[in-house]
């Protein structure tokens, strides 16, 4: 029999996707400890998540600096002693301050957890931000910022958030080098005392999580010794989108221009969110998207272009980002707007939509690699006050949303008045 290489093999649609839901154990001090026990390998990830305190315009970097410097010293150990202890056990300590939450994450082999966890406890509850370390932090952060400010895509991202949200919130504030000089040890201590307490903490463990691991956590983190008397109250950010739609930052030597354009939307708690994800995928959310097909694969203007919907606790937005040859910048802009118009004016062909449906489900399935990925999916709903219905709706919407509905959404949410930022040359 001659092999038929022209026709694609029979394929199957993805029927069911199983998410591993965590169990929850309430610790004695009230902390919700979520755990997903789903690993053959002897490893574990422990995440401590702390909703951010209110952003303070007088010290715009305090939340981030507090998180960054947690491991720079405690009353008992210097920064280098803390690093020694973590590194000796082959563990990884990560810390991250996002727009809404800050977190501390430990990756450890199970056999070393009893040695590494007490260090994390010390870091979270007793970080003391020594002056010397703070001044090194300020100096090095300023240097890194200076390097980043030479990058067009970095400048475009910062400027875009600024025009989207304004200067009066953590979401939109465009950091400048001198802001680092406003940081004080007192402020960091105050943020730590307010934010990093048992009353403001969620713990998620994933990997190989048996009774022993949970017991360790409960003993170290389940008591009243790090409860605060005050309940943390956080106010909503003040968001002030700019009325200037077109923003251009000239960089005369640029070989490429960074483009970022978009507009405010909603976050994932909105009923249209999932359908907008489908629309976004068609438009610029995967390699075969319309933006990539047109602007990279047909015109060769760029190495890459994409669009995304970002969900924050108190806001959401849609944006397109790319870096294009400086000489084709205005052509690229024209093509991006043209593609948006097509979404509004012409129904998405069934064949294309069917491809996108399968791609999205396959890609979701592929993202469920291990216990950590299941924990990430859980985090993606927990922090928005949603439950697993969110994912059920997502699967259902991906499978059934119609071209007509997507066109309506494009007209409703992608109407004119895009905020546009170009850094480079036009």
């Amino acid at each position, binding site marked *: 029999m001659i092999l038929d290489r022209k026709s694609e093999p029979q394929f199957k649609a993805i029927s069911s996707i199983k998410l591993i839901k965590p169990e929850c154990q309430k610790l004695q001090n009230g902390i919700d400890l979520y755990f997903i026990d789903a690993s053959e390998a002897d490893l574990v990830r422990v995440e401590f998540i702390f909703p951010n305190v209110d952003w303070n315009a007088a010290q715009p970097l305090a939340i981030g600096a507090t998180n960054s410097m947690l491991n720079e010293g405690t009353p008992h150990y210097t920064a280098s002693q803390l690093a020694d202890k973590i590194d000796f056990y*082959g563990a990884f300590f990560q810390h991250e301050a996002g727009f809404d939450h800050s977190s501390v994450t430990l990756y450890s082999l199970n056999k070393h957890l009893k040695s590494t966890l007490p260090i994390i406890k010390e870091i979270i509850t007793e970080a003391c931000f020594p002056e010397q370390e703070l001044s*090194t932090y300020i100096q090095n952060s300023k240097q890194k910022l200076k390097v980043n400010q030479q990058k067009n895509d970095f400048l475009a991202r910062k400027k875009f958030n600024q025009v989207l949200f304004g200067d009066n919130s953590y979401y939109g504030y465009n950091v400048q080098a001198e802001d680092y000089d406003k940081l004080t040890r007192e402020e960091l201590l105050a943020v730590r005392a307010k934010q990093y307490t048992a009353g403001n903490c969620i713990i998620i463990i994933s990997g190989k999580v048996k009774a022993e691991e949970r017991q360790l956590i409960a003993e170290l983190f389940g008591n009243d010794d790090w409860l605060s008397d005050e309940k943390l109250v956080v106010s909503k950010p003040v968001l002030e989108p700019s009325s200037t739609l077109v923003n251009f930052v000239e960089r005369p030597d640029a070989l490429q221009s960074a483009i970022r354009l978009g507009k405010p939307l909603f976050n994932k708690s909105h009923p249209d969110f999932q359908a907008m994800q489908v629309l976004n995928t068609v438009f610029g959310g995967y390699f075969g998207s319309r933006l990539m097909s047109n602007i990279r694969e047909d015109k060769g203007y760029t190495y890459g272009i994409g669009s995304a919907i970002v969900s924050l606790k108190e806001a959401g937005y849609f944006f397109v980002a790319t870096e294009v040859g400086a000489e084709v910048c205005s052509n690229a802009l024209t093509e991006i707007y043209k593609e948006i118009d097509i979404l509004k004016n012409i129904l998405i062909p069934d064949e294309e939509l069917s491809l996108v449906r399968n*791609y999205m489900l396959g890609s979701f399935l592929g993202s469920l690699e291990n216990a950590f990925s299941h924990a990430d999916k859980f985090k993606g709903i927990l922090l928005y006050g949603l439950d697993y219905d969110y994912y059920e709706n997502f699967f259902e919407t991906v499978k059934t949303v119609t071209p007509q509905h997507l066109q309506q959404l494009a007209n409703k949410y992608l109407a004119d008045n895009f905020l546009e930022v170009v850094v480079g040359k036009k």
Partner: protein
Amino acid sequence: MINFERFTLNNGLRVLVHEDPATPMAVLNVLYDVGARDEDPTKTGFAHLFEHLMFGGSVNIPSYDEPLQRVGGENNAFTTNDITNYYIQVPAVNLETAFWLESDRMLSLAFSEKSLEVQRNVVCEEFKQRYLNQPYGDVWLNLRPLAFKKHPYQWATIGKELSHIEDATLDDVKAFFTKHYNPQNAILVVAGKVKLEEVKQLAEKWFGPIPAGERYNRNLIQEPVQTEARTQTIKAKVPLNAIYKAYHIGDRKQKEFYATDLISDLLSRGDSSRLYRSLVKEQPLFSEINAYVSGDMDPGLFIVEGKLVNGVEMEQAEAAIQVELERLKNEVLQQDELTKVKNKIESTMVFSELNLLDRAMNLAYFELLGDAANYNLEREKYQSVTANQIQEQANKIFTDTNCSTLYYLSEN
């Protein structure tokens, strides 16, 4: 530990199968034994440009990406100085689509002028985005030719210059395909929720009929031993002065590789590492500093690179790096510190094995190095390194005449 089975098709294609019933996904990874080191010095950047063209459709299938996306799959590829690696991740129920696509482009590409023209542009934009339009982006374009005078590692995978990519012709493309893209020069790894028997049958069906082609015999000029300290100074519009020191080391297969790799960990892995602690925190002379090995298949480089704190003199910063390298040469390493870097290697490997694609790629790469089974001996090889071996390697590597130094100075 990664379990696997291996068989070879009549046309010479080596196939490795790693079964992991716990995942609903499958990975199909094809490694071609060709990289930028195999390029003509007047046509550099070609292996990488070619990788782009591999997505332009093949002899029987006009579009590569579409049918894969339609069955829920994703794919990508990368080119290094040594290899070109393509991978597909797909729901395991649709594994055959991956075989269909990947075998057709090994069989023959659908070469078109349009595709070549567009990808030439795309790669030129990639060149600008990553190497020319970034602060310090051109470091490797300068450091490679300083360290390598003969060996083709003297150019980066993106190529020496934009013109080499702009001048590529369709004839060049065809000749490159014939020379390198055939079963004898490839390794196929299939991993995930798959069964050996099923893979055997699919491999035979889709890859079996592809002509074996010519085996490419690599015969590269080896780099002569460096005998003089080399330096170069670049001035550019960057905010900070930076230094890059490149020392010649052996290749990835040598047993000395493990001690050498651990030296880079001692120097700069984690906040407790020597360079970070001494030169960023205690003295502070650098705002960031790193040490790493290139891990190439031919003899490669050990790199120490850092950005200086504003106002610090270059001589002082460089001398401080020297002090740390001399310490490795002259002092015997304490057992605790050696245990520390070994523990880090152990946990890194355990964590990396969580990822199916990483497992598949590692099997392909170690098979190319000689035997995929050696992957499972890596941990042991790191564990067996002694303090004496570390000191010995440090003495061998860190000499002035073995070093090329690039001073990258701020014009501002």
